[in-house]
């Protein structure tokens, strides 16, 4: 499932310089930056290589680099969007970047969701909290060629209503007749005017009971959610080979050399970050 492309750069550790052209507050501590390449050559390389599921290293010189997915879809390559929670040194400085400021980007790296293999199939997207961004990249990559796919179901949950990200897009999906959107928040996380479900993603998923027939599932979320959602998917009759997820680990180089992101023998940066649930099940759990 590897689909890595040698990038043509002389120095693989040299980042591209990006203009911040948009900034959005998504949830408390969570922001989205929209970035454009300063150098048209770098941009062209991105256009040629980026496919949904790949990741990048976003940084600020003087602070360092952080790894997150490219949250924008492969059908919209004029820019890169990244969504992150402000938690460490790099993400704090990225969070303070404003429109007009400059940040750095290296990538795109890693493998991808093989969406051509999903053509003609029903799609089930399941995301928890801050893991909607990687899922959203696949969602838009598919929605931008909507006629190639069957039914589209999106199950998204967060701890509280405030923690839901991409609220404007959730509204858009809600209003589309060709998408079934199931929103939920953890018990206690609902607001007075919350009109959607209350409950954890796995049980809400079981209630929604999407059919596994001719269906591919894309599942992203915190480890505990993944664990129980996989059990629920199993109950619903989903085959682990048709469930895709994306893993993340601490990374420095992003290209298989710095030695820290492997789970067992598998390097998340080179052989991932996209895996089927069956592939994840074969990894040593004690290394996750």
């Amino acid at each position, binding site marked *: 499932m590897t689909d*890595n492309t*040698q*990038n043509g750069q*002389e*120095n*693989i*550790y*040299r980042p591209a*310089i990006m203009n911040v052209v948009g900034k959005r507050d998504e949830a408390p501590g969570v922001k989205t930056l929209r970035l454009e390449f*300063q150098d048209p050559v770098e941009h062209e390389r991105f256009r040629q290589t980026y496919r949904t599921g790949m990741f990048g290293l976003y940084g600020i*010189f*003087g*602070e*360092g*680099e*952080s790894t997150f997915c490219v949250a924008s879809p492969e059908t919209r390559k004029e820019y890169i969007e990244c969504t992150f929670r402000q*938690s*460490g040194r790099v*993400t704090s400085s990225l969070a303070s970047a404003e429109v007009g400021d*400059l940040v*750095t980007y290296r990538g795109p790296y890693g493998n991808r969701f093989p969406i051509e293999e999903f053509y003609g199939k029903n799609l089930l997207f399941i995301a928890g909290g801050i893991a909607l961004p990687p899922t959203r990249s696949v969602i838009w990559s598919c929605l931008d060629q909507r006629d190639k796919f069957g039914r589209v179901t999106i199950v998204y949950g967060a701890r509280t209503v405030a923690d839901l990200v991409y609220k404007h897009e959730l509204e858009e999906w809600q209003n589309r007749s060709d998408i079934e959107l199931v929103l939920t928040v953890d018990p206690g996380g609902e607001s007075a005017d919350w009109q959607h479900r209350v409950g954890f993603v796995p049980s809400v998923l079981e209630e929604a009971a999407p059919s596994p027939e001719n269906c591919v599932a894309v599942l992203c979320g915190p*480890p505990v959610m993944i664990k129980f959602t996989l059990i629920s998917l199993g109950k619903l009759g989903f085959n682990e080979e048709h469930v895709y997820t994306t893993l993340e*680990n*601490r990374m*420095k*180089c992003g*290209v*298989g*050399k*710095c*030695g*820290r*992101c*492997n*789970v*067992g*023998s598998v390097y998340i940066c*080179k052989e991932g970050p996209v895996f089927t649930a069956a592939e994840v099940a074969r990894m*040593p759990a*004690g*290394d*996750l």
Partner: protein
Amino acid sequence: MTKILLRDRLDDCITRWHAAGFEVIGPVSKNNISQFAAIEKADELDLGAILPGRTLKDLFFPQTEPMFRYRIGKQQIDTEEYLPPERQRIVFGARPCDASAMAIDDPLFGWDYKDSYWFRRRNETVIVTIACTAADEFCMCTSLKLAPDSTLGSDILLRPLEGNRGWLVEELSQRGSEALSRIEALLEKEAAKPLPPADVPVKFDLEACREWLQNPENFESHFWKEISMRCIGCGTCTFLCPTCHCFDFQDEGDTYTGIRRKNWDSCSFALFTMHTSGHNPRSTQSARWRQRIMHKFNYFPGKFSLNSCSGCGRCTRECPVDMGITETLQEITKLSK
């Protein structure tokens, strides 16, 4: 007829190599550390040691090196690369284990994405290796299917002659031949018999170990906890390992200007894999020791068909708590019987 390099010609060789534009580097004792450094004369060389304290790795992948200088302006960021200078170097007097280690790391640094810092230095360096005629109790090259006269990673192999008078010369690569062409006139041609290579006993069964490591059941074996109980996570074994390649990036400077550096890092350190969230996939010292052994003898050979160990034995020789790869693989050999 074989080519012979006499020891008393070494100074002339160095002069000719210098004249041809090569920097000559060899094992020396500097600041009380036995290490590789540039030399001017043959008498600076310390060729008598079993193995220098520091490895050849330092010459290709320094403990810390600047990658870029950055300067942040209002509308632009200027970066200036510090790629290693294109400079021809001859390393004289490497040991076969250290030379092998460089060839072992080549596929890693070239895995789809080429690390130009590594390959610039690799491509411009001639490694002249001296076969070992002596070993100590920590040497274990033969356990790794290498030998005290392995040619892996070397451009020229020298086999010591009787009475310390010189070496028999074996050309191994185009680069080696070019370096030799500069000193051709200084070489003797005679039929000489070199000293036999050192006798290095095999200490563990590498194949049995690999099989044991590949068995998923053994990943959670209690063995890992027992064998690593006394590890203090100091990182000495990784820093002195000729093949350990893990690194970190750190920025040094202020908001407007500074340097991004590539520094050695170590899988022995808890922070190495720690997520920002606080989750750490390898949160215990035993998980980290397991990673080190698995990486060297299972994952790395699985990807590159080479063990990430050349058997120099420094990890065991210098470990402050007397652990090391040798003991672990000996124990695994016993477990797999």
